[in-house]
Structures are given as structure tokens and as C-alpha cells.
């Protein structure tokens, strides 16, 4: 598999008033391969959005190199080659939708890229279908629910046929239903359209669905592993201000209380199964 995003020892800081800089990324190294589904976790201000903005050259590192699709992000000539391959979805769907009609908004990206009109039509129809919003294509954005708006925003990105989508807390402003809709869409894009997904989130249950979890703390990478491994560090995660999925937490507490439960439980089903198993064994003894 080809590497799609490679960060080598990147540091980055925002300029502050008195000519100082506030370091936000302190030597981050990260490689993401084509087709992966990576979740990035971290408490507020740990630098998640900052690293995300490095992934499509909105920001460039002060030190170190960031390579996206084989292009160094410092190369300003190739800026749009990077951006058409790595799309970005933000937290507030309201602030990313440009046009007054859903299908026109989805067409915005391909239009900017100078795609031929008939081809744009195909891309728009396909993208709306991929996110399950075809029947709303003539609606105005403000008539849609939050989850629907966010799916339109995702359609607007996939219409550019990117290889990778970076989503910065796409579900933060949505209700549980909208959150489920968006998560399902993201997972399907990853599985069926083999688009690489980088998902920044505060919801542990969402992160548990990824193939790989990166935990950031204070501008550095703390863990970078499968969800099962990462979430087995319950105490360490709590120390950096993060939670673990509820099922994992329950099993952790029970383990602390002396019950014999496995460490790698993520979902409610797994948890229920393990508990049943435990009860059966209890009866047998």
C-alpha cells in the first residue's frame, strides 16, 4: 500500500503577539497509508486541528517535512494538486456550504477544478447517491437537518474524487441521529470507495470504529495503534484528559474490582458477551 500522508518530525507554532511563537506541534511523525481509517484523539488544544490543516497544505510545518500524495506541502505550485486529493470536512456544516441549492453546492469543487459540465453532472449525482442525499438535491441547505447538511458537505468533497478525506470533528454539532448518519457514511466511503479517512473526534465510540487510533497530547503523539491496544491504556488515557468507550470503562472498573475480564473490549456487544461468559463461569464454580 502506498503512503498517502507522511509527516516527518514536524513542528509548528502560531505566532503570538510579542513576536514569540506558541508551539502547537512538537516533532510529530506519522504515516498514513492509502485505504486506512485513522481516528485522531486528544483533549482540547492538543493540536488535532493543527495537524489536520497540515494534511492539505492550509498550514505548512516550521520544521520537518510533510509529504502528501508524494508532494511536499511547501511546494506552492502544487497546492491545488494536494487539495483535490485530500479533502477536508469541518465541524460546522453551515459554514462550508456555499451555494443555495444542494446539487449546486456539491458541484462547487468540480467547477473550481474546471471539470467539464457533463462530467460534473455525473460526479454530483454519484456523490449525492454515495451519501444517501439524492432525493434532496433540489433542496435549499437551510431546509436540511444538521446530519443531512454534513452529508451534503461530505458529498461536496467526494465529488472532487479525493483519495483521502480529513474530517475535523464532523459530528460535534449533531444530535445522536445525525451522528450515526454521518458515521455510517464515513465508514461506507472507507469500505466501498476505499477512500482514506482521517477522523478527528471527541467521541470514543466513533474512534473505536476506526482501524487505527492516534492519541495526541500537547503537540505530540502519545499512542498510535489499533483501537483495542490504545483503549487498553485506560488509566494513561484518563491522565491526559480523555475517556475510553463506555464498555471499555465498565470492564476496566470491574477488572479493578477483581473480576476476570479481557482488556480489549470496545463495543457493547463484546462487553455483554464477556459479562455473560463471566456469569456462566461464576455459576459453574
Amino acid at each position, binding site marked *: 500500500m502506498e503512503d498517502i500522508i507522511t509527516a516527518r518530525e514536524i513542528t509548528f507554532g502560531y505566532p503570538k503577539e510579542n513576536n514569540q511563537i506558541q508551539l502547537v506541534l512538537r516533532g510529530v511523525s506519522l504515516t498514513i497509508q492509502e485505504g486506512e481509517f485513522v481516528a485522531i484523539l486528544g483533549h482540547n488544544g492538543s493540536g488535532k486541528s493543527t495537524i489536520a490543516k497540515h494534511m492539505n497544505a492550509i498550514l505548512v510545518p516550521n520544521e520537518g517535512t510533510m509529504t502528501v500524495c508524494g508532494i511536499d506541502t511547501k511546494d506552492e505550485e502544487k497546492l491545488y494538486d494536494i487539495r483535490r486529493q485530500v479533502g477536508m470536512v469541518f465541524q460546522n456544516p453551515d*459554514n462550508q456550504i456555499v*451555494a443555495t441549492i444542494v446539487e449546486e453546492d456539491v*458541484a462547487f469543487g*468540480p467547477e*473550481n477544478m*474546471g471539470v467539464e459540465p457533463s462530467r460534473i453532472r455525473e460526479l454530483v449525482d454519484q456523490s449525492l447517491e454515495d451519501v444517501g442525499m439524492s432525493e434532496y438535491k433540489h433542496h435549499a441547505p437551510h431546509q436540511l437537518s444538521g446530519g443531512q447538511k454534513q452529508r451534503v458537505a461530505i458529498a461536496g468533497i467526494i465529488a472532487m474524487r479525493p483519495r483521502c478525506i480529513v474530517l475535523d470533528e464532523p459530528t460535534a454539532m449533531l444530535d445522536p441521529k445525525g451522528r450515526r448518519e454521518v458515521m455510517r457514511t464515513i465508514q461506507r466511503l472507507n469500505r466501498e470507495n476505499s477512500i482514506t479517512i482521517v477522523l478527528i473526534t471527541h467521541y470514543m465510540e466513533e474512534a473505536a470504529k476506526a482501524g487505527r487510533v492516534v492519541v495526541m497530547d500537547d503537540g505530540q503523539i502519545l499512542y498510535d495503534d489499533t483501537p483495542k491496544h490504545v483503549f487498553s491504556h485506560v488509566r494513561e488515557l484518563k491522565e491526559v484528559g480523555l475517556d475510553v468507550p463506555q464498555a471499555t470503562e465498565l470492564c476496566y472498573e470491574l477488572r479493578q474490582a477483581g473480576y476476570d475480564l479481557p482488556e480489549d473490549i470496545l463495543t457493547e456487544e463484546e462487553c455483554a458477551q464477556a459479562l455473560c461468559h463471566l456469569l456462566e463461569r461464576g455459576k459453574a464454580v
Partner: protein
Amino acid sequence: MLKDITIGQYFPGQSILHEMDPRMKIVLTTVYIIMLFAASNPLGLCVSIPFLVLAYGVSRIPAVMILRSLKPVLPIIIFTSLLNMFFIDGQVLWQLGFLKITLQGLTTAIVMSIRILFLIAGTSLLTYTTSPIALTDGIERLFSPLKRLKLPVHELAMMMTIALRFIPTLVEETDKIMSAQKARGADMESGGLTRRAKALIPILIPLFVSAFRRADELALAMECRCYRGGEGRTRMKQLKIHSRDIFCAIFVGVCFAAVIAINLWAPVVLTMR
């Protein structure tokens, strides 16, 4: 409560006027305005009557809408008519003290009023049958030759689109802020004008702050979607001139020719000064 505000005055429909190319509609509306002012005699103006009746009939816009669009200009019409009636010299028809009405004054007043009424009624039809977005699109494409003169046509059209897109969002936001301030005890309905104006400050400030934040995020999102101005940009929807557009153009052309013909050959009695 603010949600009831409608943007523009678009009435969705499927009539020939609705389906017409927006560029053609803008051009024909302009021709219609010229026609109104070219008609130098009342008979010529009368050509506009069947024209308007037909246009409104075909578009199925309810006739009350004409009245609604005329309402705001009525004071102006009355005022200018009065001025025209009393202050134009000529053959005196009626006199009371220093007030006199002349034949010339009366005809000018009538012609002027009809002209303004028809002007408003005709141009409203453009906004009634064209969605704001189609209108913007039409304007952008119609004026795109002016890009050569370094006029920022695309940028202006983009601004209009974004404004249209964000009006409902900001209206909703204003509603929320108002409720929030009311919940904190703000009183917006009582007091004199200055007091009420002052009461708006706690609404406007958060609204502006939020609008700027939105603008910032939108700019970022647009950049992420490869936006770099109008250059090299294509459009999904292509505008095409259909036979219905040609048909309407011919119709307007015939009306225009009629007006000119009447101007040239109508009885001299009817010509104004």
C-alpha cells in the same frame, strides 16, 4: 418569528416565463423599460397594457401581487402627479385662486403615472418568475464580457450567491440571539426610538462577531475545495437559448416596433409637448 421573512419575491412555477433563460429575461426587461420611456405618446403606452396582461396571465402570478408591488411607489406617483398637474403651464382647464390645472399638466401627470406603474409591474415580474440564484447566474453570464475591462463580475456574483445562502442562516441566528437576550431580561418592544435602537446593540454585536467567524470558516472551506476565483472555473449548469426564448424575444420586438410606429405616425393631437 423572523423565519417568516421570504427572500426576494420569487414565486416558483412552470410557466414559459419561469423556464425562460434568465439572461433573456434580463435583456427583455431592459428592452421593456426602454420601450416605456420611448413611447412619447399615450397611445404608445397603451401597447404595454396587453403586453403586461399577457405576461402576468401566462406566468400565473396572482393579480394581487401587482398591487402589492405597486404599493410602495404609490406615494411617489401621487406626489409627482400633483406637481405635474398644477405646475405645468398651458391651456387652463380649471382654476381656483393661484391653483390651476392645465391640459398639458393633466396629460403629463397621467402619462407619467402610467409609465411608473407599468415600469414597476413589469420589472416585478422578473423577480417573481426568476429565483434569486438564477438571476445572479444570469447577471454573471450576461456581464462576463466586462471581465476584460477588469470588472470583478464573477466576484460580485459570488458575493451575491453567498449573501443569498447566508440570509436564512443569519436570520435564524438573529432569532436565537434575540431570544437569548430576552431571556436575560432585555426589553426590545417598549420605549422610544432611541431606546429601541439602543436595545439593538446587544443583538447586533454578537451577530457581527458570529458573521465574521462564519466568513472565516467559509473562506477556509472554499479554499479546501480548490476555489481560486473565476479563472479556469466551469459550471455544471449551462444556460441555453431555447425556442421559447426566441419566441418571447420576437414578441417583445414586435411590441417595441409598434411603439416606434405609433410614435411616428400617431395623430399629432395626442403627442405631448
